[in-house]
């Protein structure tokens, strides 16, 4: 009886230990993978059209969802912000509220989440399927390095696209906020833009937003190509890897956002 209990506890502990060592070794593999991608990048950049092609898939084809989401987020922000600001008689400050929330937080984070689900999952599925159908192995047989031919262009395509998509999200969000704030609610256009320009600084607000989106781009692209490369070469393995990409990227974006916000905006605003 007691030996049953002890072996049961040992089993649970072994499970926990296995999960921890497994995730640590995956983390180590992912870090080595990042170094390998950077190492093979010059080789990949010699065929720049591969990266351009990936910017097309990751960036251009994500434009519609990013722009539409940005517009609607900005419009909702404007409506909700007005309702709250009106109570304090500060409804003229709507511009600064919309611009600061978008430029600092919502632009990079929302664009990152949309990018992970729209482009990251597609990259993982593509690479995973290439592995399943042994295209990657065939490339190695032909002395073509899949890291330089397949992985690095997709990684850099994502890294380059992400800050641009985040900037477009913020710009369209501010435009959406303007549409609701000025013509619909009837705030003075001069006050809307003037308060915004007085309250938003290029440094630190806009540049920190761009830095955030760049970091999210690296994180999402790395997770996407890594999960694809690491997927089990079965139909089920590819589907699990795709799901993992979306879940892990979303968690990574939100966690990284918190950490970066702590460092960027704590006490850095005033004199």
């Amino acid at each position, binding site marked *: 009886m007691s030996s049953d209990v002890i072996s049961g506890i040992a089993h649970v502990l072994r499970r926990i230990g296995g999960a921890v060592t497994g995730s640590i070794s995956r983390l180590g593999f992912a870090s080595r993978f990042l170094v390998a991608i950077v190492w093979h990048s010059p080789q990949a950049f010699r065929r720049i059209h591969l990266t351009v092609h990936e910017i097309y898939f990751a960036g251009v084809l994500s434009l519609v969802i990013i722009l539409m989401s940005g517009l609607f987020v900005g419009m909702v922000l404007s409506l909700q912000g007005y309702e709250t600001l009106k109570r304090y008689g500060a409804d003229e400050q709507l511009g600064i509220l919309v611009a600061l929330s978008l430029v600092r937080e919502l632009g990079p984070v929302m664009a990152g989440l949309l990018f992970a689900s729209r482009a990251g999952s597609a990259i993982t599925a593509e690479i995973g399927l290439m592995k399943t159908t042994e295209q990657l192995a065939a490339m190695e047989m032909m002395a073509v390095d899949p890291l330089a031919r397949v992985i690095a262009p997709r990684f850099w395509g994502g890294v380059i696209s992400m800050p*641009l998509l985040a900037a477009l999200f913020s710009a369209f969000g501010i435009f959406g906020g303007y549409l609701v704030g000025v013509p619909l609610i009837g705030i003075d256009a001069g006050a809307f833009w003037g308060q915004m*320009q007085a309250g938003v600084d290029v440094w630190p607000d*806009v540049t920190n937003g761009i830095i955030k989106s760049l970091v999210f781009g690296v994180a999402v692209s790395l997770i996407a190509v890594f999960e694809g490369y690491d997927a089990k070469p079965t139909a089920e393995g590819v589907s699990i890897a795709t799901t993992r990409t979306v879940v892990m990227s979303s968690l990574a974006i939100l966690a990284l956002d918190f950490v970066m916000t702590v460092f960027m905006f704590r006490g850095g605003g005033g004199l």
Partner: protein
Amino acid sequence: MNRSAIDLWVGIFVAIGFGAILFMALKVGNLLTFDRSPGYRLEASFDNIGGLKLRAPVKTAGVVVGRVESVRLNAKTYEAVATLRIDNQYEFTKDTIASINTSGLLGEVYVALDAGGDTTMLKDGDRIAKTQSAVVIEKLISQFLFDKAADSGGGGAKK
């Protein structure tokens, strides 16, 4: 899709992406107008600057004529010295009064310049002689309470 069409779309994408960054820097962050009007500098010492921040507006009759460029402490006199950057198109007389005001009860803190009747004008680097410090509401309240206590005669406070 052939390569040149993809190149075209990527080119458009990168261009409008940088356009969006430029839009945020210029239109939202107001980088352009800040750099375009260099203006000239005036200094003003205050006993207390209250909540005055960098880039707070400098106003005359409610019109923004410049920005607060820097705030430092004069270590000898323990006064705050604010450097004001004024647009070149505005000139102020030698007897201008600089005061720190608040727009509304919760509004932003700004520097108000009230021009006098002198004929000579302030030049770049000049110091504004007459200043009025920020009003600290806590001090006002405590002054009011002490006055009340003195009036009522309780506590035997001597005038």
